């Protein structure tokens, strides 16, 4: 389903956010709650500008996981956007709801806390992320290259749905540029 927003975007070289948005669309990922991160701004803006998506902020990431779980059970697909600190609030809901109920939760995490982080707290929070994902045996990919992005996002969404298992797509500063010390 091509919209005017699609046409406007394709005029310039697609950025990481265009590619994610396109992959979401192709895979019918239409419901996109988020707790924002500076790096995610162009993706969030793109989603808001495209009527295909229902995108909105939630008060907590956990709440968004609940919403996406209910939506999946009701037959509607979605994805959660957040930063590393947001992921750090999720182990309880992942272990008590998403994994035991076999929910194909798609998580897009903007990686803060590495490759030039200026906030020590962020860097420590970041170190908790992969151990949690591994402890729950959850699929996760760290995306560093634009040329691999579409393949990784597209295949990961398809695998999550086919296997009824969650996936975390981690957006490295190598891909997004990250957030730099001002």
């Amino acid at each position: 389903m091509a919209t005017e927003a699609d046409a406007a975007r394709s005029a310039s070289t697609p950025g990481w956010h265009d590619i994610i948005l396109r992959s979401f669309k192709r895979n019918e990922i239409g419901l996109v709650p988020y707790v924002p991160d500076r790096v995610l701004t162009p993706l969030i803006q793109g989603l808001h500008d495209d009527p295909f998506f229902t995108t909105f902020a939630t008060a907590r990431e956990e709440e968004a996981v609940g919403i996406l779980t209910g939506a999946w059970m009701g037959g509607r697909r979605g994805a959660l956007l957040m930063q590393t600190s947001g992921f750090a609030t999720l182990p309880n809901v992942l272990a008590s709801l998403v994994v035991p109920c076999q929910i194909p939760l798609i998580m897009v995490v903007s990686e803060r806390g590495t490759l030039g982080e200026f906030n020590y707290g962020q860097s420590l929070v970041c170190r908790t992320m992969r151990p949690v994902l591994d402890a729950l045996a959850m699929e996760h990919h760290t995306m560093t290259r634009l040329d691999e992005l579409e393949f990784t996002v597209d295949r990961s969404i398809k695998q999550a749905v086919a296997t009824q298992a969650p996936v975390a797509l981690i957006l490295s500063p190598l891909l997004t540029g990250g957030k730099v010390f001002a």
Partner: protein
Amino acid sequence: MSAALSNTKIMNRADLTCRLVAKLKHEEAVIGGIGNTNFDLWAAGPRPQNFYMLGSMGLACPIALGVALAQPQRPVFALEGDGSLLMQLGCLTTIATLAPKNLAIIVMDNGIYQITGSQPTPARHADIVAIAAGCGIAASHWAADEEDFERLVDAALATAGPVLIAARIDDKPGVGATRRDPAQIRERFMQGLGVRQPI
């Protein structure tokens, strides 16, 4: 006990849950929250449109919101304890903002964490209906007694939401014992919502 209207009767969760379920004739979805709300929903009798949320305190309302967004034609009820709602109060603002017409929240307010030993919650001086209204859910009401609760449920089924109904309840535990099989509960629910066919 939260600061409800002083003339609000103290009711019973199992009784109110049975009264709710008796009114559901059109495959309405019901999400039971952690512990007692889903135990009493289980005890009220099997319905494929019931989802029993086992371990994620505070997420009955967000899950119900997700179902409501996915199936806008189907009325959806969330059954939540007051302690659980306190853990995820922010979700009331999300619900108010998205304003799904088909969502109703029922809060069973005993003022305690009954299931963990009946400790009082920190909300002694709080009014859940005032909180919900303050979050932007204009149709938020205390049920004065059982008849009023039934009237409010009828209104929730007949008029556009979102709606929040709070009921002061006693300190009794839930009466059912939900079978702890999350994958089967989820699959049955999806079948009940017409999303999946049995294999």
